[in-house]
């Protein structure tokens, strides 16, 4: 095994650990909706929410980085250039995440001054990490970009998937710099902040997971490089063509010019079209191989990725993306419902699929199957569908009673939050959150146990020189 592949395993361990922290913080966040006075002035809602959404970003990012470190040496047939820096920065990354988490839990917030921004909380949603940690994230991402490009350069080889990946890493790294400016005008600040959040999640990450899925399909099903690369080019063209200007669908209630609402509505309404193509592709691949695979968990998680992405981003997104609907749904639990489903389908399922794929190789198991993965798969997906169902009902209640009928007043907000539909939906969300958490434990158990018995029986893979 290459050193970068060993590093990939460490990234996966860190990712799955943070996935657990994300779930714990999510469950706590859900509890505040049932009991708003919970931990009042001790550990308020906003801190639990920060932990929930920041760990979401970090665990997925670690999963992506790990996956690239796994596939890269296989793709180029050589060790990653500068791997020792990447190894060092992995520990720096993990330590920084731990320190930031401790500061969020213990210190929580500070005054409106430079010290707070640098050492406590930067104050921008999703990128709240204090500035010193944000500088660290830039260092990690730049090292990662260097590792990938320098390895391709040294190998004097570039493949279609790798070329797309390298082109994608440039905006991915540059966009994060958007977390740094100190803009005092709130409209301007949110305008640029959405560039970071939207372009990561609905553009650069989509391309990144497309590259990772291309490599995964080649390994999992033996799909030919020509097929995955041709499909990747089409997918990237369509995703970027619809996703970039879809940015405008976030520009509600923040003071941006009105034309953005139509632009955003138009391009984001096109976003389900490439997703439909991906669903057809998934069925094609599954049909070509007659649902036969040596790694059933990875195969089913890949299918869950295609379908989850279509339903979460496509169906749930289209329900609320046209401006006349978005005016009412924006910023309600309806958006939260869409966000949960889309993140899960587009990214989380893909990362879990890659973890199973990697484990099959490290444990040298010819056939990868177990009972526990089915429990993990079933409980996680059931929990997720239940949660987004609850959030959808809560969000529609808000859109109707707070916005359409109540006129978006503070009193209407409170009335909608106390509406029986909203409260029942929040109970349902919490209960299904527990189901999701049980699924997480089944997943972790399975990741630790699956294929171990086979590994003892099978000869270990020879390490490359």
């Amino acid at each position, binding site marked *: 095994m290459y050193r970068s592949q060993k590093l990939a395993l460490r990234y996966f361990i860190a990712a799955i650990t943070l996935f657990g922290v994300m779930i714990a913080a999510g469950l706590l966040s859900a509890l505040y909706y049932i009991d708003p006075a919970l931990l009042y002035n001790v550990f308020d809602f906003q801190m639990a929410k920060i932990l929930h959404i920041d760990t979401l970003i970090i665990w997925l990012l670690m999963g992506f980085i790990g996956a690239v470190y796994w596939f890269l040496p296989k793709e180029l047939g050589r060790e990653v250039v500068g791997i020792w820096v990447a190894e060092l920065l992995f520990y720096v990354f993990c330590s920084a995440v731990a320190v930031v988490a401790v500061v969020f839990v213990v210190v929580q917030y500070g005054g409106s001054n430079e010290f707070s921004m640098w050492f406590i909380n930067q104050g921008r949603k999703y990128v709240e990490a204090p500035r010193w940690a944000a500088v660290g994230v830039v260092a990690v991402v730049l090292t990662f970009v260097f590792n990938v490009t320098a390895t391709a350069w040294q190998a004097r080889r570039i493949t279609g998937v790798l070329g797309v990946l390298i082109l994608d890493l440039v905006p991915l790294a540059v966009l994060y710099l958007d977390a740094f400016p100190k803009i005092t005008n709130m409209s301007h600040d949110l305008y640029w902040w959405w560039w970071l959040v939207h372009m990561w999640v609905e553009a650069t990450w989509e391309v990144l997971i497309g590259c990772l899925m291309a490599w995964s399909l080649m390994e999992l099903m033996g799909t030919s490089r*020509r097929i995955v690369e*041709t499909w990747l080019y089409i997918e990237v063209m369509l995703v970027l063509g619809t996703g970039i200007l879809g940015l405008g669908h976030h520009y509600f209630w923040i003071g941006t010019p009105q034309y953005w609402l139509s632009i955003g509505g138009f391009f984001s309404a096109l976003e389900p079209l490439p997703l439909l193509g991906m*669903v057809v592709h998934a069925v094609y691949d599954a049909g*070509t191989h007659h649902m036969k695979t040596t790694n059933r968990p990875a195969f089913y998680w890949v299918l869950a990725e295609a379908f989850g992405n279509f339903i979460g981003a496509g*169906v749930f997104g289209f*329900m*609320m993306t046209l401006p006349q609907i978005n005016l*009412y749904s924006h910023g309600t639990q309806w958006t939260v419902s869409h966000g949960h489903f889309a993140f899960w389908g587009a990214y989380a399922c893909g990362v879990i699929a890659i973890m199973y794929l990697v484990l099959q190789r490290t444990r040298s198991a010819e056939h990868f199957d177990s009972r526990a993965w089915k429990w993990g798969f079933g409980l996680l997906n059931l929990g997720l569908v239940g949660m987004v169902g609850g959030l959808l009902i809560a969000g*529609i209640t808000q859109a109707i009673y707070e916005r359409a009928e109540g006129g978006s007043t503070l009193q209407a907000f409170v009335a909608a939050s106390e509406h029986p539909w909203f409260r029942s939906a929040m109970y349902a969300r919490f209960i299904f959150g527990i189901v999701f958490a049980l699924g997480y434990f089944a997943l972790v158990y399975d990741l630790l146990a699956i294929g171990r018995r086979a590994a003892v029986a099978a000869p270990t893979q020879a390490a490359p020189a």
Partner: protein
Amino acid sequence: MTSAALFATSAALGLLVLLGGAYGVLYALGAARSSPSLTGAGYACYAGQLLLVLVVCLGSPLASLWKLFMAVSGVVYGFIPPATWRLLDSIHHNQLQ
């Protein structure tokens, strides 16, 4: 927009994409298994989708341009599964030759 219209329009839009997805899946399954009944079920979903487009165009309070957009995208949905399937098939066969 009234709250009833908001709910009905949004539900119709979600269902519209869901039917598009069901059309894609059933069409692809039908093609993979050479099953005319599955392909037929796919086309039935697409017919349902077109019907829903009609309902949205005639009965929702969306602006005219968005209704035009819905009508055009309803037609485009019809082409995506067969076009994608043919493309994948041709790449696959070229690869095998």
